[in-house]
């Protein structure tokens, strides 16, 4: 049971990061129906900027928490700038173009950002300075670290903050209005361009924080780290119902847990030696080696995409999405 609990804790930590990144996808999609494939790269740039800042400050004798906070404080504006210019330069000119054009542009932007990062930070795997002392706490037989607790707490706070922003402020109202019908919102006096830019900026800021968290949690950053993370977060957004903000949160957490449990238990469930009686060959094989595992833990990354396919086949609108069907 403690192993199961441990896997759930692992999954929730990972899932909360997915959720934060998924919000970036879902907010942009909700407003302009664009799948911003470059969002994963924004997360990567957040991690890279934080890496540079933390490395520079690490030896300075400042408290670790302050160093990480400064790192985040530098990563957020850089990502916000990237997010804003991305929208201004690459997507706004194409807003009236056929749907496919901005999608391909998004892939292009993603490649450009990745390679820019490669030029700036090299191809090497960068090691985040290990400045935060990891404290381990016991929780009903499972271990949870202070970093995990911090990640969970920060993610929950950010989600709460975003929910407040969207449902309780004027900007949030304008965003929801634009999402429902941009033309009408424009006629009602909403500055659509500003609202869309604001959406990109908020998504990028969340992405920056996610990048810093991923970097400090795993201790590594590389210019390619954004692609897989981005794709998984995108799957999480689809799982929750793309365009739906609470959906992205639920989808992210769920996907993290599915992945952790999947990777943890798939080997046990696909161990053919459990059904060794079925054929003589299998019995023989299992006598020599008590395990014959069909799918091992290396299929961890596959779960996100199996989930993505299942959702698209069985419930294209996602868990919480409603009106996506006709707009996607």
């Amino acid at each position, binding site marked *: 049971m403690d192993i199961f609990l441990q*896997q759930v804790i692992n999954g929730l*930590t990972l899932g909360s990061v997915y959720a934060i990144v998924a919000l970036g996808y879902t907010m942009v999609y909700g407003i302009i129906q664009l799948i911003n494939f470059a969002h994963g790269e924004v997360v990567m740039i957040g991690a890279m900027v934080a890496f540079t800042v933390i490395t520079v400050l690490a030896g300075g004798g400042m408290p670790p928490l302050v160093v990480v906070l400064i790192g985040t404080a530098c990563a957020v504006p850089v990502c916000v700038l990237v997010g804003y210019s991305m929208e201004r330069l690459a997507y706004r000119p194409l807003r009236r173009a056929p749907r496919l054009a901005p999608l391909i542009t998004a892939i292009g932007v993603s490649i450009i950002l990745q390679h820019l990062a490669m030029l700036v930070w090299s*191809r*090497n795997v960068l090691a985040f300075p290990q400045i935060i002392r990891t404290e381990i706490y016991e929780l009903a037989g499972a271990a949870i670290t202070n970093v995990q607790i911090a990640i969970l707490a920060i993610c929950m706070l950010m989600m709460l903050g975003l929910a407040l922003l969207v449902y309780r402020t004027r900007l949030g109202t304008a965003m929801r209005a634009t999402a429902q019908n941009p033309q009408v919102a424009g006629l009602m006096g909403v500055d659509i361009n500003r609202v869309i830019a604001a959406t990109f900026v908020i998504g990028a800021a969340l992405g920056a924080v996610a990048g810093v968290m991923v970097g400090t949690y795993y201790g590594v950053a590389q210019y*390619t780290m954004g692609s897989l993370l981005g794709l998984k977060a995108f799957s999480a957004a689809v799982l929750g119902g793309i365009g739906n903000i609470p959906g992205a949160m639920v989808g992210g957490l769920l996907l993290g847990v599915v992945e952790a449990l999947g990777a*943890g238990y798939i*080997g046990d469930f696909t161990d053919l030696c459990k059904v060794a009686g079925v054929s003589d060959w299998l019995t023989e094989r299992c006598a020599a080696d008590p395990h014959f595992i069909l799918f*091992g833990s290396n299929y961890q990354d596959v779960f996100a995409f199996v989930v993505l396919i299942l959702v698209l086949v069985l419930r294209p609108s996602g868990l919480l999405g409603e009106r996506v069907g006709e707009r996607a």
Partner: protein
Amino acid sequence: MIAAGSRGIIAPRFRETRMKNTNLALTLIAFATAAALAGCGKEEAKPVAKAPEAKKEAPPAPTPSLEIKLGHVAPLTGQIAHLGKDNENGAQLAIDEANGAQIKIGGKTAKFVLLKEDDQADAKQGTTVAQKLVDAKVVGVVGHLNSGTSIPASPIYNQAGIPVISGSATNPKLTEQGFKQQFRVVARDDQQGPAIASYLAGEKNPKLVAVIDDATAYGEGIANEVEKTLKAAKIKVLPREKGTDKTTDWKAVLTKLKGRNPDAIFYGGMDATGGPLVKQGRELGIKAVFSFGDGACTDKMTELAGQAAEGMLCSQAGIPPQAASKRFLDSYKKKFNVDPILYAPFTYDAANLIIEAMKQANSADPAKYLPVLQKISFAGSTGKIEFDDKGDRKNAEITIFTMKGGKIDPIAVVKGGKTSSYAEFLKSMGGG
């Protein structure tokens, strides 16, 4: 540290190769220039290489002298240029000593000349300089440094019948091609798995071991060897767990392993993924001994995993340069004013092997001295050297390291299945 070179064919080299691709235009220009130069050289029927320089060095000797050209190839530019220079120094030292000794070959005083080439750790450049050396009519080659350049260059030397001894290319494939004139004096990657596994089995007495790999040819290969050796020693091994060469989240796998409570964990993969692995393992409260192959046998493990990396075990092909014979270390230091960094003792031995074989065969003709080289038994700076049928060194050494105070520290040497502590090994080298 050794890993930079010995990983040769694996990830880092590919990265550099790709970088070269982005500089395609530049490379093409360089290529064209080199080709043009080579063309000129042929027309003049004179090797362009570094022959003019070599001629200046040759003084008019009273006894007839015989100029013997040897080649040395290593990256002299780029990220591991310092290792290339180190290798080159090792070979140069052997050549200078041989010239000082006035060796007589075929009745003439031998005058050895080392043609030093730069392959930029790039596969394409490796074949280009190999052809250049063949055209310059060298009779033996020490190099290349990387497996990734040695392997593509080897058919070129093979066709020309020129013996090649690498002091640092550890990829098994190099000597698996059936080339009779291809040798290496350093251990092969696939000798590492058995070495670290037998060290684990002998020193740590684990009852249950978990083996993880990163699903690459290198990681899976070394993990298989480890598993085989452990099973042969009657130690239980858990079903293989796998990640990828980009996996940074190992928590799911490690949590599963924690439930089985293994005494030791072996990971076949690189430091970039191994660092997070050991870090997360300790975070989950796993007390097992973590062990790795040379891909994760670097000081970078501490950068990546911090305190969690302390006490881990790992292996590297060959021996640390400090363990080479004192005579070599002293003369290297005297000549170059620095200490050898990595593989210099091996390239020193490689060059000496060629010279010794020529001496014994009394000829600098590859066809004549190659049979001698195949059967040679030579006391080098890295111990006794003999070759097997493939051209690999018999009983090559693998060094076991542990992480101590943020640096990898040699603790034992495994040679021919026997483990001796590093101190004992040093003593035996000093005595021999």
